């Protein structure tokens, strides 16, 4: 089980409390699809992903980005039981969605960059370290049920 210090929990909740989940989620997913275009392979039914502008403006990307980041909120409420929290989602990503867990790591890195852009000086090295740890642990939990 992952240990979270009081400082880490504070750094997580203070950022989360000031986050616009819809906006950041949409931005993170859009950047994933733009920076690592091969990730578009999972989104054939999303319509127009032909350019960065199209991706950023795509309503399905925005909606799905919001969905993904909203799920992060669940992780933050259950930091002491991430594997349990993500058990069903992990099975889904393996059995139905067939997503290589490497993609979770890529999205996590992108999310950290989006947070840095939004929080600027407030996104201190300690803050980055905590959030990189969080996205890494979430990625691990999402991969946990893979077989």
């Amino acid at each position: 089980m992952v240990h979270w210090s009081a400082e880490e929990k504070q750094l997580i909740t203070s950022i989360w409390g000031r986050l616009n989940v819809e906006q950041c989620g949409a931005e993170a997913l859009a950047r994933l699809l733009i920076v690592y275009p091969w990730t578009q392979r999972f989104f054939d039914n999303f319509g127009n992903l032909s350019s960065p502008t199209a991706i950023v403006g795509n309503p399905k990307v925005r909606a799905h980005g919001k969905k993904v980041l909203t799920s992060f909120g669940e992780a933050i409420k259950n930091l002491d039981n991430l594997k349990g929290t993500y058990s069903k989602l992990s099975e889904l990503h393996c059995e139905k969605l067939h997503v290589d867990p490497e993609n979770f790591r890529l999205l996590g890195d992108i999310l950290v960059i989006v947070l840095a852009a939004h929080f600027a000086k407030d996104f201190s090295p300690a803050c980055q370290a905590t959030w990189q740890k969080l996205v890494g642990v979430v990625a691990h939990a999402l991969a946990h049920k893979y077989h």
Partner: protein
Amino acid sequence: MVLSAADKSNVKAAFGKIGGQVDEYGAETLERMFATYPQTKTYFPHFDLGKGSAQIKGHGKKVAAALVEAANHIDDIAGALSKLSDLHAQKLRVDPVNFKLLGQCFLVVVASHNPSLLTPEVHASLDKFLCAVGTVLTAKYR
């Protein structure tokens, strides 16, 4: 992975905008890397890694200078960084996985200092550029 004309232009413009702050960016990149990925500290047992360390500032400047050099010779990064590539292969032997970690931290520094600079397109180009630099620096490892 190939840098397109647009990538090259984005990278050059980005470093142009960063300008003289690049030294500071280099130092902060290292600071963030050591904080976020403690295993990277194993390559610097001889350094004072405390906050404000002069050695980190100095080394950050070196790292930044190498990135600027690569950006200025973006059509031939391998040529521009050939000596550095030899150094990493023969002496430093930093495990290849660590270049990604440095790259991630550099992007975080750019994002936190200059969010308007890091549009999705520039983000993609810089990420590719940093990958290319890492590839060059590890190219002669074996």
